[in-house]
């Protein structure tokens, strides 16, 4: 408020103000950043701790001279340097020192030389092996024979065998853009996307037509009972949709419209709010413009089309934006009316809800779908902000 003041105190307040705004901005944007990052991740990369915003990929290396191609790079526990995994199915022996000291030693089984001696471990006789560790022969026994990976040091040197558990992949930045293509083609999001477009276009066009005609009648044609009728229209805004859900479902059942996209379009092409919006706008257009045309003998419809509609473009844009957001995001009614077992009639929110539901797998694909669903309304909002912000504010506060 006190922005025009000068001096160190005012500067401090200003800095603090921006800090608060920025902090809230971060809280608002952070979930979206997480969404975009998750949509670009590999599934194995999502359930790691600590969580990370960077979509990572495993680094690979190719060295034709040493005979490996696109080998994944690993860091090995207890060893320096990076290693390329050249074979992930080599036999490994897990040895322990006979005296019980030290950790498990995992090496290729043939490195240990079998002896005739035995040692008793946990009541079992175990054969004693000799194993060279740091140039020193050590008596060991074999705990387990398993398989592991053969790792070549990238910078050259002796290859080592190591349990895969002791190896962590060396990850670098690597977004996986295929998630989007995959979710569109495999998870039926493509079909839902076109369905949602169809529904949205239908609802928006229908709402504009009925609202322009109705708004014009309420604003400019002075017939008996008009104002009472308009009050009923206004009152209808108060009725929550929950009350209509059951009878509308029954109506759709009677019409044979269940599990059909038409049930998402036709009932929503009539909007009291849109009619109200258009009426308010038409009221603001000077009557002289219309009267001149009326005297010229033009019909009502021609006046509406030629004079009023071009003037009402901002109001129509507002209405279109609202209709778009409503139709694109609506979930409850599709959930009721579209059979979730039939993916062909799904719309995006519905498909996403099924996809990202309680038994969901492929979290990266779910998020790719979520990003695809959220991007259009956000973009429309950013482009149509002028209409949108002004009218959200004025819709109720007139």
């Amino acid at each position, binding site marked *: 408020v006190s922005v025009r003041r000068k001096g160190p105190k005012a500067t401090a307040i200003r800095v603090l103000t921006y800090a608060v705004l920025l902090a809230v*901005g971060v809280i608002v944007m952070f979930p979206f950043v997480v969404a975009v990052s998750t949509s670009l991740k590999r599934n194995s990369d999502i359930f790691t701790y600590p969580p990370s915003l960077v979509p990572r990929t495993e680094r690979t290396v190719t060295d034709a001279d040493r005979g490996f191609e696109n080998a994944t790079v690993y860091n090995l526990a207890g060893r320096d340097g990076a290693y390329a995994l050249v074979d992930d199915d080599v036999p490994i022996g897990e040895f322990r020192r006979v005296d019980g000291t030290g950790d498990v030693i995992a090496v290729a089984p043939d490195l240990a030389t079998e002896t005739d001696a035995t040692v008793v471990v946990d009541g079992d006789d175990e054969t004693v092996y000799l194993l060279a560790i740091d140039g020193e022969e050590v008596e060991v026994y074999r705990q387990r024979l398993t398989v592991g990976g053969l790792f070549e040091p990238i910078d050259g040197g002796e290859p080592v065998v190591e349990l895969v558990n002791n190896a962590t992949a060396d990850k670098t930045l690597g977004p996986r853009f295929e998630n989007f293509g995959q979710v569109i083609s495999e998870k039926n999001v493509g079909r839902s996307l076109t369905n949602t477009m169809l529904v949205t276009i239908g609802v928006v066009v229908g709402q504009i037509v009925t609202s322009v005609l109705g708004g014009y009648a309420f604003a400019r044609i002075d017939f008996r009972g008009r104002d009472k009728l308009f009050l009923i229209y206004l009152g209808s805004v108060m009725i929550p949709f929950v009350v209509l859900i059951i009878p509308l479902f029954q109506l759709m059942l009677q019409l044979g419209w269940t599990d059909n996209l038409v049930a998402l379009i036709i009932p929503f092409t009539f909007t009291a709010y849109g009619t109200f919006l258009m009426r308010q706008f038409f009221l603001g257009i000077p009557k002289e413009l219309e009267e001149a045309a009326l005297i010229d003998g033009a019909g009502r419809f021609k006046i509406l089309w030629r004079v009023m509609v071009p003037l009402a473009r901002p109001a129509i844009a507002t209405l279109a934006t609202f209709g778009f957001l409503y139709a694109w995001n609506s979930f409850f009614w599709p959930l009721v009316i579209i059979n979730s077992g039939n993916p062909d009639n799904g719309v995006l929110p519905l498909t996403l809800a099924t996809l990202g539901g309680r038994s969901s797998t492929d979290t990266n694909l779910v998020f790719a779908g979520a990003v695809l669903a959220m991007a259009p309304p956000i973009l429309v909002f950013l482009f149509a902000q002028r209409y949108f912000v002004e009218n959200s504010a004025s819709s109720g506060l007139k």
Partner: protein
Amino acid sequence: MLTTETETPSSDPPAPAGRRAARGDHRVDPRGYALMIAWHLVGAGAAVVMFLLASRGGDDELPGTMSIFLRIFALASFVAHAYAAFGIAKRQRGARVVSLVVSYLVFVVATVAVLHQLGAFTAIGKLGEGLSKAFVPFLVVAIGLIWVLVAGQIATSRPGSPAIGVLRRAGWALAAIGGIAFVVVSDPSGMLSALVDRVTQPITIGTLLIAAAALAATLFMWRRDVAREFETTAAQQQVLTGLAFLSPNLLGFLFFFAGPLLFSLVVSFYDWKTTGTGRSFVGIDNYVEALSLDVSSAPAANAGVEVLKPNYQVLAHLDWFGQHWVVGARDVTFWLSLRNIVIFLVLAVPLAVLPALVLSSILASQLRGMKVFRAVYFIPSVAGVIGVAIIWGQLFQSTVGWINYLIRRAGEILPFVEPPAEGHAWLSSSSTALLAMVIVFGWMSFGFNTVLYLAGHQSIPKELYEAAEIDGARTWRIFRRITVPQLRNTTFYVLITTSILALQLFDIVWILSTPQPGGPDNATMTPVIALYNEAFKDNNRGYASALAWVLFAIIFGFTFAQFRRDAGSSTSAGVS
């Protein structure tokens, strides 16, 4: 208030009352009237048949009520048709209006019926398939149309430029090529053959004929010379024009809003299950079932249903005045959902409103970059609740979710933050599940409320702030003494609308609650989820309708409070 306007009499088709058309010049063919009378007599006959059929009693849904509605409808159409026929014969002034309304309605109903029989409506749904098959041509059409629009915009700013016309035609051509490609790729041959099948059925042809006759009748009566002959007044003509413009809206409103609303009210008085056959009128039993509570004192703390009336289940245990009480309800789930939604309201509404009040005060101060912040804050409310809920589900994840991670990190840095138990499961523990919903709701709604508040800020007189600045008042004092009181009306409106939204909480819970919607253990059960389960899982439509009306009554309380306040203050409810 609503404006009235005077029409220029000469502008509308009908001549003012009392001015007869010059005889002989525009004499309407009397055979036309004879046909009109015949048309209405046939209509009246059809209405009688309908009345008799309805009286026989249907075997369909809600026989009693439906048949009453049908009979009233038939009676009304009989009266209208008969009056129209009689009035046309006598050239009565009102007859033209009634005849036009009746014929137009018959035309609309018959046309819709024809389209329905042809499967035109369900074909809209099938269009989804075509769209997915022929998406690229669809894009071409869209680009072509946008091209035309853009060219049109340029044309208005630079009129008379021939290049624009060419550009515009190119856009149309592009759209046309895309359209042809769309038809070819989407391959509608199956749909066309089905259409031909249906169009040759007698009932379709019959309805089509009725529609054509009704259209002819409407057009005939609409004629100017007919209007003149009936001496239609300007006021009557206004009613006709007004209703004609309003009709698409009004008919849809009646069919998809008013009718269903009435039906819902009727159904709420029925025991109406879709699975069973019984559909009996039960009066207010559904409402009694939903709202019944029983409080009973109990001898011991472990008392259960045995101290309650039959059919009641334990809702809560209370210890008041050294006495143990057991509260029981017949529909425990619904009462739990009411308890949850009250808790939700108390927590979520302040979270969605208070930050908005503070932030809007900062944003209103015209600092640089405020529009950017405003836009950013608004994004969550437009992004779509399902996507948002999915993101938050991941954030709340117990082992690798960001929320637990950040709290843990904060616990490492700050001494007073107690790190949660290892991997606290926000969504699957009853104590925090509802809180998680509160956070998501608050996060989604505060930006929208901020914009509402910004509108309120515009109405605060700037002089108030200037005076305060001269007095050297501190920022906090200005906020408390000027901003908050001046925004009282806005605050009230924002509180009410947010509460109404919160009462209908559904989507967030549907996605986030686990293991089933409303879980765990009904901890996030909301009234709308309870209603959904009753209506579409248990197929208890009558009872669910009653729940809907109970919920509506609660919501209406809030709306009514807003309305009363509007009526009391100078701002009106919207009719400006």
